[in-house]
């Protein structure tokens, strides 16, 4: 898989958020998006994940040299973000199962969800409602959800927010694993987290 972004710009109500963002990523690449609050890091991640439309510029995903629309890559993209919420009225297990069913890949999640829930220390709490989870546990569950279908492209916005030391270490492991043979994009304000990635773009507040 390859991602080529050229002269990307986003405006909300004619107010520019960012402009002229260009980069390209291939397998084993990792990119850190840095910038002050309001510089458009989260907006850029949303656009790259196909959740928002760009105002100008182009985003081209290609698999084996063939261009593929981002909407067709839903089962290859994972996202962890503060604005991405899971369903409070369901348990962790139900969330993973229902969302995988909607993604149409529920047949392969049983073992994988068990493995990830154990890895992130949520196995014992798998049958508890998400509304009873602490913010750190919710962040761990978001990682489980994002990694469940083994995405080729993982977007992580504020990776360690609300996490304790153990959680940060788990995230670090996930990031290292993802960097080995897949693509990773991290949006962060924290210098150390930006250092996890091989490439970096800095968004300036317009």
């Amino acid at each position, binding site marked *: 898989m390859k991602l080529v972004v050229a002269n990307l710009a986003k405006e909300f109500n004619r107010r520019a958020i960012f402009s002229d963002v260009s980069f390209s990523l291939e397998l084993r690449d990792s990119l850190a998006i840095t910038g002050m609050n309001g510089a458009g890091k989260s907006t850029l991640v949303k656009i790259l994940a196909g959740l928002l439309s760009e105002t100008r510029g182009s985003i081209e995903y290609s698999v084996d040299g063939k261009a593929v629309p981002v909407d067709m890559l*839903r089962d290859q*993209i994972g996202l962890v*973000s503060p604005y991405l919420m899971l*369903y409070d*009225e*369901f348990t962790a297990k139900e969330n993973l199962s*229902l969302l995988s069913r*909607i*993604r*149409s890949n529920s047949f392969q999640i049983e073992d994988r969800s068990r493995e990830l829930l154990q890895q992130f220390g949520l196995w014992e709490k798998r049958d508890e409602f998400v509304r009873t989870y602490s913010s750190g546990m919710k962040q761990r569950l978001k990682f489980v959800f994002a990694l469940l279908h083994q995405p080729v492209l993982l977007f992580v916005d504020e990776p360690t927010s609300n996490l304790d030391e153990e959680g940060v270490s788990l995230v670090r492991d996930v990031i290292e694993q993802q960097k080995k043979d897949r693509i990773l994009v991290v949006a962060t304000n924290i210098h150390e987290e930006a250092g996890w990635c091989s490439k970096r773009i800095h968004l300036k507040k317009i």
Partner: protein
Amino acid sequence: MNTFYSTYAVLLKDAQSELRTRYAVNALVMFVVTAAVIVQLAIRSELPSSAVLSGLFWVVVFFAAMSGLSRTFVSEEERGTSMTLQLVASPSAVYFGKLSFNIVLTLLLNSAITILFTVVFPGFVVETFGTFLLTVLLSSIGLASTSTILAAIIAKANTKGTLYPVLAFPILIPLLMTAMRATTRALDGEPFGNAAEEYQILISYIMVITAGSYLVFDYVWKD
């Protein structure tokens, strides 16, 4: 096949969520009971004509639908889960999943209103059951289709509560007028075939609204 499975999964998720939270059902039940009681108190022992009764029936259906059917999208937006859904499902799966859920909800709502009207108003006697059944079925699908796309549009607005009925009313006028006419025929005992024109209008309405909604949903849902 994937879109079909995904659509079914969205419907299942909404149904399970509704059973747990009762976001929409509570609003609908409260409204229906309150409206029926108020109408009954206003009419007292009067025996209204079938045209008036069918009008009252669809007024209650309209306002009840306005109070509950927007929840499918509004609750996703309020809980911050709309992006999660966007990430895992195609727009068509979300649209048809939510539409199916709203159709089921509207059919249940209309069944409840029918039972309530039959109990509360002695004059509300369905003479031609086939006409009534088909009218309620087609109108429920039309009402759900309009409500679903409008709910997706208003979910991102600040003034959701007022915007929804204001936007819905002009679009639903043809459906409500046709449904009222066909219901009057059913209450008057006219033969099933007499309402053929109404069935044609309702089917055309469903096709136009559903096709139009499907075409614009991608834009509404994404931005």
